């Protein structure tokens, strides 16, 4: 966890407090609280985790333990258009690895990183359950099926203006 203590803004502090309150500040609701918090902030930085820990009366270490355990939670901000490449079995068998390499090459970032302009971030996920469309790529909420390495450029172009 980062050692630099950044104070959470008053407004954000209230948002977190409200989220915790909506779950009656119950420690058992930690995962639900973190889902909601990540929904509003986009990610879960250390200082946000500290507030959650305080509100639910659990050690920060426990919150951190949960955040790092589950792949859905992230401590790094994602890009404006988060790109997720499915690396489930069906996608793997149908060439997801080549698609991933092409995204890395075009964006010049590694998995887990965000482009310098903050536009795209790259991650892998395990199966979105759309195996019939393998290989599958998600950009934000939009899903692309049967993606080939040649199609990567086209997908990125869709977001170049936005």
């Amino acid at each position, binding site marked *: 966890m980062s050692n630099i203590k950044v104070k959470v803004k008053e407004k954000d502090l209230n948002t977190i407090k409200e989220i915790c309150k909506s779950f009656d500040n119950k420690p058992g609701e930690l*995962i639900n609280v973190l*889902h909601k918090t990540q929904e509003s902030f986009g990610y879960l930085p250390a200082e946000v985790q500290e507030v959650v820990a305080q509100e639910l009366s659990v050690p920060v270490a426990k919150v951190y333990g949960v955040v790092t355990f*589950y792949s*859905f939670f992230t401590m790094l901000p994602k890009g404006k258009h988060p790109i997720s490449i499915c690396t489930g079995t069906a996608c793997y068998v149908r060439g997801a690895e080549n698609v991933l390499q092409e995204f890395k090459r075009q964006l010049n970032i590694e998995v887990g990183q965000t482009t310098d302009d903050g536009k795209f971030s790259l991650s892998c996920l395990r199966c979105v*359950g*759309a195996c019939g469309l393998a290989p599958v790529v998600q950009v934000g909420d939009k899903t692309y099926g049967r993606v080939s390495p040649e199609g990567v450029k086209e997908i990125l172009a869709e977001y170049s203006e936005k």
Partner: protein
Amino acid sequence: MITNLGGFKMSQHKQIRIALNNCGVIDPENIKEYIARDGYVALGKCLTEMKPQDVINEIKESGLRGRGGGGFPTGLKWEIASKNHADQKYVVCNADEGDPGAFMDRSILEGDPHAVLEAMAICGYSMGATKGLVYIRAEYPLAIKRLKVAIEQAREYGLLGKKLFETDFDFDIELRYGAGAFVCGEETSLIHSMEGLRGEPTIKPPYPAEKGYLGKPTNVNNVETYANIPIILRKGASWFNKIGTEKSKGTKVFALAGKVKNVGLVEVPMGTTLREVIYEIGGGIENDKKFKAVQTGGPSGGCLTEKHLDTPIDFDNLLAAGSMMGSGGMIVMDEDNCMVSVAKFYLDFTVEESCGKCSPCRIGNKRLYELLDRITQGKGELSDLQRLRNMSLVIKDTSLCGLGQTSPNPVLSTLDNFYDEYLAHVTDKKCPSGECKDLMTYFVIEENCVGCTACARVCPVGAITGEKKEVHYINPEICIKCGACEERCKFDAIIVK
């Protein structure tokens, strides 16, 4: 039961729809359509005509076994939970479909959410629980939405809540969200995750039926298991147990995917052969390539080959063949897939998903992965193959939960069925299917090269040199083996070896 769907005669294709009975037929966001197809009749019958033990007996007699992978008899599980007395008990639905390449549960939840809710209420009645929880993965937003709508509508219609069917039975259902951890498919992990903790497993016993969610008796079943319940109670155990094989009754839904012509969900009676599923329903291998293997059971299962194609699919046969039923993923592979890479792929998954609590799984799987990685890079030795096997057996024997106890299966089954392919990697330093890039080299066949320069222009790293109209040369030091040149060459002058 549906035998004809949209002109596609299911009977001819060996499919029977029981769990998927309503999927694609009803509007899942309209409870009236579910009720019109005898929805909630089973719950009404249980509450008004049957004692809890009668319900359990009926499920036991049906022979239904858990569809999540293990195949534990469902009726027995309910009975155990019913005999543990407590002030509060819980019914949990495991909808954390973490097996990559499987989407049966998602389809059921999206297509027929009420069937699951009805079954959970029935389970609650049989074991004396008044509270149900669906643990669903956050990656399934549509399924979550449909479940929420369904729960709301069921409450409005008095099918969830207080005094159902004017009896003294109360039952209500809430959602709990997963956050992406494969190990949470394991019952004890799932329960810890619902309690807001890290999803780490604990030793059984105590089983969840004794001490589960918040320390109370808890019954955990998977989505597909629940989806079978209402229809069994409507049509009777004797109808259900006529379908399937001696020890595995009913049907199983498989998510057929990979290199097969028709991908999608199939529901077949237990005892159908792999060949029937892959060739008759799946239409055979895509692009008429040669069949190589079929992987069942996800990261816990194994790769089966040609010789297993006529094995009737059921829990026990798949185990005997070195794989397992698992939750129903079925991935077909053709001659272009390298089996060492497939094993490595699964290990990569397991290494990432191991919760890290017990050392055989945390460290052992990592070591297995490293060995496989070396082999695919051409750095493997013959002794590595024995080491792979020994280590796999130790991990299986000593891991705490189902994840570690089954994670070496992809390695063991590929070692058993594709030993020659491993040998080719370690002794000849060749990958027969050409998937392991480190073991390939691109060559120019001098006689065929006309010096058109097309390859040099398409090469992304400038590894190809040569004058116009003269033979070109690929520098293996620079080449990244992307294959672009081979694809571009019109004269078949570039080959890979």
